């Protein structure tokens, strides 16, 4: 095996042993899986490299020299052909896409075929650690690999063959690639989006521009980060951008357009075809997070009286990019949705059967465009549907919500609920950092306790003895943990009850209930205080110890009551933010509640102590 890093800079001799320069680069023909090296770039004494044909002039070569088979004066220079790529200039040290591993990597070295035959071929790009080590020094590579093998963890070579490389820096669309060459274009749009998200913004735009428009449109819809998609769109030519929007499914396009700023969005919409524009505008007319916003208007609608043959004919003539058809929807004379035919029944039926005869007999399950998207998604799951028809008040079919969109909704809502419940949204990112974060979150009361004790000690410094402050703050953990619990209580209530539901308890009812719990809790704390006091007094008698403890526990009881009494406020905040579609983290709510509890505790402690002293 021979590597480019070893060949670069090696001397080039002519047939007489005269040195004519050093190896600067190799050109390859791009049409094969393992491309042949076709050209040799030599850096002569003049510092400017020149190219000669490999086949015509190179006699022999190994990793320390290249020998030509002609004399110096017989060499004719050649030029880089359009289908040739210079592997040092275009590949080495560059970022490429590994289209099989679906990652963006940097080429550390290039592996070339054996030196035994006169033909030299590019086997692939080395992207692993060994390439880096080898380029630093071949000895280093040998030592490290030997050590690694001795330790039982050999470092494998990570080679990407030419047919699985997609060059980012150089547009290869003008180069005729081998049939088996897998470019970014051929990946699944979701994978393309994943890869693009890992590139720098500029490169992202450039690579995106190279994609075929259909792939580009689908990849655009697959971006996790809508803001990123909007940014790419903002950088594109307007005509190009509007063409892409037209090619996307209307629901995806609407989502993207809503991310753009108003002027830009209007401009793009104006450039689009009338039909697509109308579809998008209609979707944008619905509020966010409703069925109307996520539905697609691409559904197959037939007259009730039509036959199976007609339906099949319509199916055959649909555009390729039409939303996948799972059902055929039937409309009556007044354009109302009157029946649904599954694809299976359609295929099984005779061509001359009437569609209305084979439609589903059960009651039709439909959604209203103003319905909450979460409800629609849940109904799709409940009734095992592949798509849910959305109808207006008159029963006219407006569009359908497909199961893939419903899954997205459920995932999104699940993440939001988790966050409100105090969990972490990025569940798949496990690691030490997150474990520690988790510990911190679960035990925030402990740190606030410490902080509160320190602050109270500093504030009262010189006026009250340190031990009585510390004793008083012994009651603080109760106040803090109860505050934390009150938030859990609120979030549980929020997640379990839908405010739009008629039989869910009202805010006033909730307030009464939580006040009751708060009272009970506060009484419990006071009861404990009495028990404590009895024990302490029998041991130490009346004194500062018992009175400090008393202040602390009275303050804890007051703060407990306050935490539950304010619970309806947090519930109200949650509802308000939910209506405005803002995400709320349960953890920050807890933090707020705990700091409020701390404040209440401190104030009550202070007031009680003052009253007693007076």
């Amino acid at each position: 095996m021979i590597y480019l890093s070893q060949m670069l800079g090696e001397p080039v001799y002519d047939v007489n042993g005269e040195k004519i320069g050093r190896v600067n680069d190799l050109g390859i023909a791009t049409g094969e899986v393992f491309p042949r090296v076709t050209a040799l770039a030599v850096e002569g004494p003049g510092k400017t490299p020149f190219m000669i044909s490999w086949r015509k002039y190179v006699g022999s070569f190994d990793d320390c020299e290249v020998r030509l088979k002609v004399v110096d004066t017989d060499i004719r220079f050649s030029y880089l052909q359009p289908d040739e790529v210079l592997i040092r200039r275009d590949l080495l040290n560059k970022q490429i896409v590994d289209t099989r591993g679906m990652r963006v990597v940097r080429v550390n070295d290039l592996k070339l075929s054996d030196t035994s035959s006169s033909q030299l071929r590019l086997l692939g790009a080395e992207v692993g650690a060994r390439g880096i080590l080898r380029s630093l020094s071949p000895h280093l590579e040998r030592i490290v690999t030997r050590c690694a093998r001795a330790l039982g963890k050999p470092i494998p070579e990570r080679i990407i063959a030419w047919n699985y490389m997609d060059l980012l820096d150089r547009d290869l669309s003008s180069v005729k690639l081998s049939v088996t060459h897998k470019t970014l274009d051929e990946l699944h749009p979701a994978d393309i989006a994943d890869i693009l998200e890992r590139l720098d913004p500029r490169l992202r735009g450039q690579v995106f521009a190279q994609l075929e428009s259909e792939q580009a449109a689908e990849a655009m819809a697959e971006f996790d980060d809508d803001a990123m998609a909007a940014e790419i769109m903002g950088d594109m030519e307007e005509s190009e951008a509007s063409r892409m929007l037209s090619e996307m499914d209307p629901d995806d396009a609407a989502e993207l357009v809503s991310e753009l700023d108003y002027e830009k969005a209007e401009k793009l919409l104006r450039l689009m075809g009338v039909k697509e524009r109308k579809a998008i505008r209609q979707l944008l007319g619905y509020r966010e997070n409703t069925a109307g916003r996520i539905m697609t208007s691409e559904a197959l609608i037939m007259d009730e009286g039509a036959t199976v043959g007609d339906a099949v004919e319509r199916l055959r003539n649909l555009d390729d990019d039409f939303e996948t058809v799972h059902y055929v929807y039937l409309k009556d004379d007044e354009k109302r949705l009157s029946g649904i035919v599954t694809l299976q029944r359609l295929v099984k039926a005779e061509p001359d059967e009437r569609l209305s005869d084979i439609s589903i007999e059960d009651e039709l399950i439909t959604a209203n465009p103003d319905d909450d998207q979460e409800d629609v998604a849940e109904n799709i799951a409940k009734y095992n549907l592949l798509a849910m028809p959305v109808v207006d008040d008159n029963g006219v079919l407006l569009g359908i919500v497909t199961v893939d969109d419903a899954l997205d909704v459920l995932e999104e809502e699940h993440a939001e609920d988790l966050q409100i419940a105090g969990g972490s949204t990025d569940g798949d990112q496990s690691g030490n950092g997150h474990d520690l974060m988790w510990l911190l979150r679960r035990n925030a009361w402990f740190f606030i306790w410490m902080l509160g004790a320190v602050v109270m000690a500093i504030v009262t410094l010189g006026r009250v003895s340190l031990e009585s402050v510390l004793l008083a703050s012994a009651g603080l953990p109760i106040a803090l943990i109860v505050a934390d619990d009150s938030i859990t209580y609120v979030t549980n209530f929020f997640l379990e009850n839908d405010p739009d539901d008629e039989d869910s308890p009202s805010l006033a009812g909730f307030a009464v209930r939580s006040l009751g719990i708060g009272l009970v809790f506060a009484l419990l704390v006071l009861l404990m205080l009495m028990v404590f006091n009895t024990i302490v007094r029998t041991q130490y008698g009346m004194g500062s110890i018992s009175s400090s403890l008393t202040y602390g526990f009275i303050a804890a009881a007051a703060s407990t009551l306050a935490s539950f009494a304010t619970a309806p406020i947090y519930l109200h905040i949650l509802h308000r933010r939910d209506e405005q579609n803002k995400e709320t983290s349960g953890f920050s709510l807890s933090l707020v509640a705990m700091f409020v509890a701390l404040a209440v505790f401190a104030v009550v402690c202070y007031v009680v102590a003052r009253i007693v002293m007076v």
Partner: protein
Amino acid sequence: MADVTEKSTPTAAAESGQQQGRRRLDPKRVLAALGPGMVAALAGADAGGVATYSNAGAMFGFGQLWTVPVMCFLLIVVQETAARMGCVTGKGFASLIRERFGVRGSALAMLALLISNTTVTLSEFAGIASGLGLFGVPTYLSVPVAALAIWLLTMSGSYNRIEKILLAISCVFVTYIVAGFMVKPDWAQAAHDTVVPQFANDPRFFSLLVANIGTTIAPWMIFLAQSNVVEKNAREEDIPYQRIDTVTGSVVASIISWFIILVTGHVLFPAGIAVNGAEDAAAALAPLAGPYAQVLFGVGLVGASFLAACVLPGITASAVCEAFGWERGADRSWAEAPTYRGIISAILFVSAAVVLIPNVNLFGIMMLAQVVNGVLLPVLLVCMIVIARDRHIMGAHANGRIWNALTWVTVIAVTVFTVIMFVLQALGF
């Protein structure tokens, strides 16, 4: 404009507006571009910066004031080049180094960056420790807590949420400007010393000079400036705006450092107070804040150091991973980006561990880090010159002769000062 009025359709008006925008600077875009330079400038007034400038003033009075305008100019040259490279190529500095110099060159450059940034992080921890020390918090408590907090912030990517707060806190050093007017220094003398360079035959003078260069033109600021531009996806037509940002940021940074030297030179130098710790440096603010000088100084020092300590490990890890093609970013997990997270953790761990060595001189560490920074700066500056003048990479925006010469001057000046510093030290002055 006359022909436009005839068919003044909205699009025509918009187009003419755009053309005007190209010729004249659009105030809105100027404001939008401002920011990264300011952040870099304020973060530049970190622990090491304050320590260096305070020392310069305390040891040599106004003797090093002349360095400020020179440094300001060189800072503009370097930062402008970095921002321009980002605008033209859309790639980070590390990417460019790798693509231009290959594995060996980038390994060298990244090693230099790694060492220099680790020592700077070290100095930030020293800053946090000595700043909190003013409030009576012992080092063995403040440093581990700060390290853990910074580690969690950078790992979870929630650093951005508190960036603004930290920036606001670090603005405390702007009070040096107020203090500068309150202490009523000899303005004529100050102006004279700002313009006329002077040298002292003292190794400390030269090590301070190297430290001064190292802290003003810190390697990490080059990477930060360029990556900010790349993240914003600024283009060639945005270069004028980036220039405005660079110049304002550099000038603000220099004004602050000038006033720090002025105040310490006026207050501490005549009193013969050597800056051996945060208390001494804080004493310079006494004319302004009286008994609260220590609180003011402490808060500023901790805020600025914390800010820089949050930024630095991330920049370093990001640059190294960019150069070698490994996954990077705060949103990648340990499994996805082990090297990125590993480098950040290692830098934080090493820095915190060194500061925790008993009886270590914290202000000494801050100074030493800046010297290391200065010594390693030429490695990265040479990379920068070579890339910035390469027309294959930079196209029409390649460096002109003057810019090249100025960068070379910086490189040679740092090298010469470093050599003088070592020679003087070796001779045992």
